[in-house]
């Protein structure tokens, strides 16, 4: 038994070592740095202890940081809602047969294999004023001026569209896998009982899909809360603060302005907020699932 345990630990040890080195050590280091004032551009570039949690106190009153969090949450809610709706519809469509279905599925999946920074570049090339085709088309055929360098609303929604384009296929594929694995008995019973399609969808499909939905929502929620690359490429966080999501804000504070201490505190606080949001969401969904059972 002891020998079996030893073998187990031996086999697990590389993973544990990597997790500790790549996950826990940096986390605790960031946690530690977050308690100090530290900017290597300062007259005194060393770590300065400025009272326990002074960075955190400062962040509570930092409007720009708080606005970036609100912007990130708003962005996540909007993109998640659209991606879930679209993804579910597409997954349901892909369950049925139609001509060129395989071709459609392959093409639809393509955005998933593209790196976020490339997605940002593609959208930039398509949408940049004066040179990209989209502003021309919108102006010439619909009389609509697209200039997200000037218009904060457009910039925000352009990022939403980009994220939806990039990640809806992931939602579709995951939900499709879930839908394909659902047992057929409840559907047959419902049909015998005279339920219509909407009732079947609402009372059978959705409840049975809750575990899959939880997984999709969590993965996409966490991903969208930490969006950086695509935004960096497309708008750089502008115009003004319009697309300065928390990830971008932290990057600018840490790597442009070199506020290592404050930036670390921001990271920890944002991680905490992300965990709280996920936990609340998880609790609500699990509770609802239990009630419906």
């Amino acid at each position, binding site marked *: 038994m002891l020998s079996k345990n030893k073998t187990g630990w031996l086999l697990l040890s590389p993973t544990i070592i990597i997790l500790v080195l790549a996950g826990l050590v940096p986390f605790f280091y960031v946690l530690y740095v977050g308690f100090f004032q530290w*900017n*290597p*551009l*300062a*007259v*005194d*570039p060393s770590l300065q202890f400025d009272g326990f949690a002074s960075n955190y106190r400062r962040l509570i009153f930092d409007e*720009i940081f708080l606005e970036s969090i609100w912007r990130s949450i708003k962005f996540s809610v909007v993109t998640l809602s659209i991606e879930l709706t679209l993804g579910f519809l597409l997954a349901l469509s892909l369950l049925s047969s139609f001509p060129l279905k395989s071709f459609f599925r392959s093409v639809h999946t393509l955005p998933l294999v593209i790196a976020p920074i490339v997605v940002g570049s593609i959208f*930039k090339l398509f949408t*940049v*004023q*004066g*040179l990209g085709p989209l*502003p021309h088309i919108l102006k010439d055929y619909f009389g609509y001026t697209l*200039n997200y*360098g*000037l*218009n*904060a609303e457009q910039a925000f929604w352009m990022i939403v569209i980009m994220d939806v384009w990039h990640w809806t296929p992931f939602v579709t594929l995951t939900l499709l896998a879930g839908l394909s694995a659902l047992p057929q008995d409840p559907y047959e019973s419902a049909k015998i009982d005279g339920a219509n399609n909407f009732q079947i969808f609402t009372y059978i499909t959705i409840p049975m899909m809750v575990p899959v939905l939880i997984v999709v929502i969590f993965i996409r929620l966490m991903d969208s809360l930490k969006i950086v690359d695509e935004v960096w490429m497309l*708008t*750089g*966080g*502008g*115009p*003004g*603060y*319009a*697309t*300065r999501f928390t990830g971008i804000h932290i990057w*600018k*504070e840490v*790597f*442009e*302005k*070199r*506020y290592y201490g404050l930036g670390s505190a921001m990271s920890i606080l944002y991680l905490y907020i992300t965990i709280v949001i996920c936990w609340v969401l998880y609790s609500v969904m699990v509770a609802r699932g239990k009630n419906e059972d």
Partner: protein
Amino acid sequence: MKKLLFALVASIFSFSAMAGGHADWFKEAGAPYKGTVLQGVAENTPPGQFAGEVLAKEFEKLTGIKVQLENTSWDQMYDKAIKDMEANSGIYDFVYIEQDIVYDYLNRDFLVNITEGLASNPSLQAPGVSLDDFTTFIDYFKDDTGDVFGVPMEAFIKVYLYRKDLFERADAKAAFRAQYGYGLSPATSFDQYRDNAEFFTHFCAEQGMECWGTTVQGHTGHPASTYEFLESIAPSFGLYNWGVNMDTYQSCVENGGQLNGGRAKAALNFWTQLLPFAPPEALQSTWSEVGSSFAAGRAAQGWVYGENAAWIATDAEKSAVVGNVGVMLPPTAPGVMTQAAAGNGYIGYYDGGAYGIPHSSKNKEATMLWLQFVAMNEHQADWAIAGGRITHKDTYADPKVMAVDEQADGYFTLMRDTGFLYAGAPPFPFHGAGRGAIDPFIYSALAGEMTPEEALDGACQALDTVMADLGYQN
């Protein structure tokens, strides 16, 4: 590309000529380091491409030392270089030091003292290479004692470019005079600049041409716009050193600074009011896009970095305005030129950079050889032609450079004769943090979310907070 190939061929001839002279020395000096791979990171500019694609190959042929130069975007270059030097990881053997960041690097002791390094190891001193051959631009890379920490590889000024073909059109001249009551000519004052911009925007539209009155480097999410304002527009209005009081490190007027003063507000108003006359891509344009827009013939005039001026004026493969480019000093407010000439101010940015060796480099001696190779007189002319940069005094007189100078409407002559009117960035060790504090306000002013007055009031407060935070105001 053709130009780079030409430069390559020309360089081969130059190096052949060098063979009788210093080539043998480099071969001998490089022998102990044969097989070494030097890693470098720099901004992807025309001069950087020449270094990576031409000089590095020649150096490898001579010495057997391979130079892998990673020419990347401006943001990535800083990100990679600084992270490497902070972590002391030794990934890079040489890094690009932009003139405005050198005070930060020196303050943080990132760089090897090249003067000292060569003095303590005379066997590494290449014959025929002298730091005295450089223009005064090398002074930016010296410490208080005069020791050199970076070997300049590019230096250029930001000039006023205009389309001669448009300004010389008879119908344009007549229409301009009818509308404004004076003759059409390249701008020497801000009012004239604005009139030109407005006029050509309408004129081009009437003629069915895809062109506008002026460039604006106005990206609303990239520091390029802050740089255009602080380093080009503001100084030409007489606002120097970002409006920071250099004794007290305060920038708001109420504390003795100038960043939200009359000159600054006039400058930002002038600049943001040019936007209706700029190509639609202006709000997503950094220095690269401004160069490309002008080269595509999409602007009648503009402030353009000199590294782009030469190719815009001469490279028909990349530029649609070859033969039609005029080069002048940018317009200035009354008194600014006099102040600049007396050394009490400047009219714009003397930009450029150097290659330096981080302390963390694992191949310092081989890199010393590479940096001296870069500093040799023999290939400066070809480099100047390929990249519009000049770092050596003698390069101006080179026949090849003079020929290009003629094609480029005297850009090199202008740089030689008026370079002293320009200046590098102010000596702020907190450069990145300070600029980062100002950025969002400039973006907001450009996007129309704030008035120029509001933006500058906010910017000076943010900058003062940073300078106080970092301990400079004490």
